[in-house]
């Protein structure tokens, strides 16, 4: 099934372009080549609104001199196009360098953590459309109050090649497939929305593993359950977060603050705390780009470094930050495989891959039963953090009251707000279950796919931003 395609650029051409990039005295040069094809289908109100296809192809070249990086990109992959981009990137280096340098590349192959069985480009558009019609049917069948369903299908295949003046030559072929369903339910008290998505770094076999109907039903249920919802409380309450989307909490509350670019510039609440207790001893946090099939997994990062499993917090103690090539080089260490970029038009920076909290010992049902009064968060939407202060927000999109140790009434959407280091210390129960969810992480104008995960857990106090008395 695998589609074998020609190398994006001949290694000999890459060697010459790298040589030119260093021609003005640069210390390090890199070429990132990308060829990305994507397909999208959107269904809205029972109509297939749009089928779209895209092709992005180009190269980004960077040259490093001291602490300075020059960057240029081009959609022209001919030798002359690459040489022109190399010259433009090299312009940051002071003139009078050693002239064109000889570079010898050594190719290496890194196995992908994800196994693609059915390349999406081998599947007809009709079959992709069919999935969405099924999702629509299933969502509407979930309840008469479902008045609106929209569903989206997307796949992409991103082939990349990274070469640098240290002789590295590395490749990856990244396939992603996703389905998302959004429902609107209408009742006496107004309208409510529910959203669910299934997304993996695998091919069309996704739909052998994940039920289209179930995905749609979850979205529908989420909207329906909120029709009878009452306003969320306003104030500090204990919060139990169900396994899965709660991983966003760790992504925002501490993940971003552990990215080395924030650390080296003194813009993180976690700076200078290596070896110290920064979280409840129940917390072991990992960032791992090698988790099979997960949304943030790749064989190599966008600097050619094989991805790896990095333990960031172990039993509450901060063990390491995440690193890309440049930040690691400055510290005299190696990258942790966290150098990522949105496309060839962007410079890489430190990014998360799949970030998750390891499971603990507690029975998830017991955690709820032992919570006298609080909020049970079953699904979280997006979030945002200020890494320097550690303050973060994230949105509850399915939540319930906990009263006398039982999950009772549904709550309307609201944001939670907290301070990362503070919330990490307030985790007092960690479940023995586990769930992951896909997401898109935005940083400094660039979006990359990431995974998040956690077991069911409890935070003794978080500020819930509702309108009802707590």
């Amino acid at each position: 099934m695998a589609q074998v395609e020609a190398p994006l650029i001949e290694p000999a051409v890459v060697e010459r372009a790298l040589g030119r990039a260093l021609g003005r005295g640069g210390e390090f040069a890199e070429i990132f080549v990308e060829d990305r094809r994507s397909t999208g289908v959107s269904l809205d109100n029972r109509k297939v609104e749009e089928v779209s296809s895209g092709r992005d192809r180009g190269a980004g070249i960077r040259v490093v001199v001291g602490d300075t990086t020059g960057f240029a990109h081009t959609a022209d992959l001919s030798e002359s196009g690459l040489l022109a981009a190399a010259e433009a990137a090299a312009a940051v280096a002071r003139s009078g360098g050693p002239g064109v340098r000889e570079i010898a590349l050594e190719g290496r192959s890194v196995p992908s953590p994800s196994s693609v069985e059915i390349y999406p480009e081998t599947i007809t558009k009709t079959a992709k459309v069919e999935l969405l019609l099924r999702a629509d049917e299933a969502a509407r069948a979930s309840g008469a109050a479902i008045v609106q369903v929209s569903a989206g299908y997307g796949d992409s295949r991103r082939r990349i090649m990274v070469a640098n003046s240290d002789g590295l030559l590395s490749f990856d072929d990244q396939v992603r497939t996703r389905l998302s369903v959004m429902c609107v339910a209408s009742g006496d008290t107004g309208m409510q929305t529910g959203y669910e998505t299934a997304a993996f770094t695998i091919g069309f076999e996704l739909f052998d593993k994940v039920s289209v109907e179930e995905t749609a039903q979850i979205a529908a249920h989420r909207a329906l359950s909120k029709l009878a919802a009452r306003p969320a409380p306003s104030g500090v309450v204990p919060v139990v977060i169900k396994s899965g989307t709660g991983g966003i909490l760790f992504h925002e509350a501490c993940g971003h603050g552990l990215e080395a670019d924030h650390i080296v510039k003194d813009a993180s609440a976690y700076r200078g705390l290596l070896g110290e207790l920064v979280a409840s001893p129940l917390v072991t946090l990992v960032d791992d780009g090698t988790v099979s099939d997960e949304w943030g997994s790749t064989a190599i990062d966008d600097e050619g470094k094989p991805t790896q499993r990095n333990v960031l917090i172990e039993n509450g103690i901060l063990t390491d930050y995440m690193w890309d090539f440049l930040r690691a080089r400055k510290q005299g260490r190696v990258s942790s495989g966290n150098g990522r970029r949105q496309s060839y038009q962007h410079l890489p920076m430190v990014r998360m891959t799949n970030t998750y909290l390891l499971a603990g010992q507690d029975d998830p049902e017991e955690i709820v039963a032992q919570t006298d009064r609080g909020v049970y968060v079953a699904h979280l939407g997006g979030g945002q953090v200020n890494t320097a202060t550690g303050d973060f927000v994230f949105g509850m999109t399915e939540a319930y009251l906990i009263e006398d140790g039982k999950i009772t009434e549904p709550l309307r959407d609201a944001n939670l707000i907290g301070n990362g280091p503070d919330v990490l210390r307030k985790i007092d129960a960690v479940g023995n279950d586990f769930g992951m969810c896909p997401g898109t992480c935005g940083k400094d104008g660039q979006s990359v796919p990431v995974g998040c995960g956690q077991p069911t857990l409890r935070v003794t106090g978080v500020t819930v931003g509702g309108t009802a008395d707590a």
Partner: protein
Amino acid sequence: MPELLELAERIAGAARPGEQVEAYVSRERETDVRVYRGEIETLSTAESAGVGVRVVIKGRQGFAYVGDLDEARAREALEEARDNASFATPDEHVGLAVPDGHAVTTLDLWDDALSEVSTAEKVELAMALERLVREGDGRIREVVSTDYGDGQGEVAIASSAGISSTTRQTSCYLSADAVAGEGDDTQTGVGYSVGRGFSDIDLAVAAHDAIDRATRLLGAKKPNSARLNVVFDRRVTATLLSVLARTLSGEDVAKGRSLFAGRLGEEVGNTALVLVDDPTNALAYGAAAVDAEGLACRRNVLIENGRLVSYLYDTYSGRLAGTSSTASAVRGGFKSTPGVGARALSLQPGDLDQAAILEFIGEGLFVQEISGVHSGVNGVSGDFSVGAEGVMIRDGRLAEPVREITIASTIQRMLQHVLAIGNDVEWLPSAAAGLTLAIGDVAMSGE
């Protein structure tokens, strides 16, 4: 520029009988400089371009794009779009924009001098801002990054339905991301200055803005929860208007995905509210002579004296609603099809300045920053809950700073509870203008 329109017209000209074809061709040149501690951290120069092709055949739309200006690949995209169209569900309202006789306003959004500015001057400006911020206040501990960026964007749209238009604009910005500290307390602030050209950039404004925003919340505490009146700072109001505009999209309304569906002609807010989207105002950052389907942009009144008088429409949603486009098509570039959006929203200003509004409110919360807008505002249910930072208002004056709070209400209630509208209009780099705005009866969650 002529070559972009010529390429668009050649692609559109390839339409077969019974078929509509639109080509959206764009090209951008950008320079971005980031400096840190007196050195260039990154310097990027880039040109990117591409072609997005829409094909409509018998009420079915297909789309494809290619990320360069190669004509052969653009023709492949046309073929792909044609194929994609065959999978869509026929919809009688689907179709390309047809010229509607509205005159195109002449707007000068291009600064010729920008291309004469040397890279060295751009670097020097960014370094000057970093120095000013670092040296401007003893509490500034770090300037994480100082950025200068400029861009020249050109778009040509041509279609077999008679559209042939071009637009171009330049933009320029300078910003600094500062960290301030006092004792154990840390706060951050981003300050900026923007314009069409290099000479529009005001170094002192950007520096003062960054220092003020980073330092003003030092010592902030988390207050107790309360129900109170709030005053939104100008930038916050602009963000709120952008959110409100999403709920006035004719497409979301027609599809039952907006809290304003079915409410045309009704009173939706305080009678003092007048909300206008006018992209022909050259002061607006989002100003444009033509929309993303090539129709002449025009002034649209959305809310008049508290009454909802119009939604925003592109061609498709206009037809769906039985009316016509308000020339409110926007798109994220050549990679996407048009959608509905505002470009230059503003509230009709009132007569009070910020100080007078604070005095009028007496007791409450002055909101300087909000966060989590994407996850915290639901345009369907109207539920509103966002993170906030600011300063308490006591006795009509700014008192102690507060942080780590949320403010919550619903969009519906907030529009009804407008207490005062400022006279301090400021056009910001967003789809909306800012002004001071006071809203009553909001839940603040803290301790």
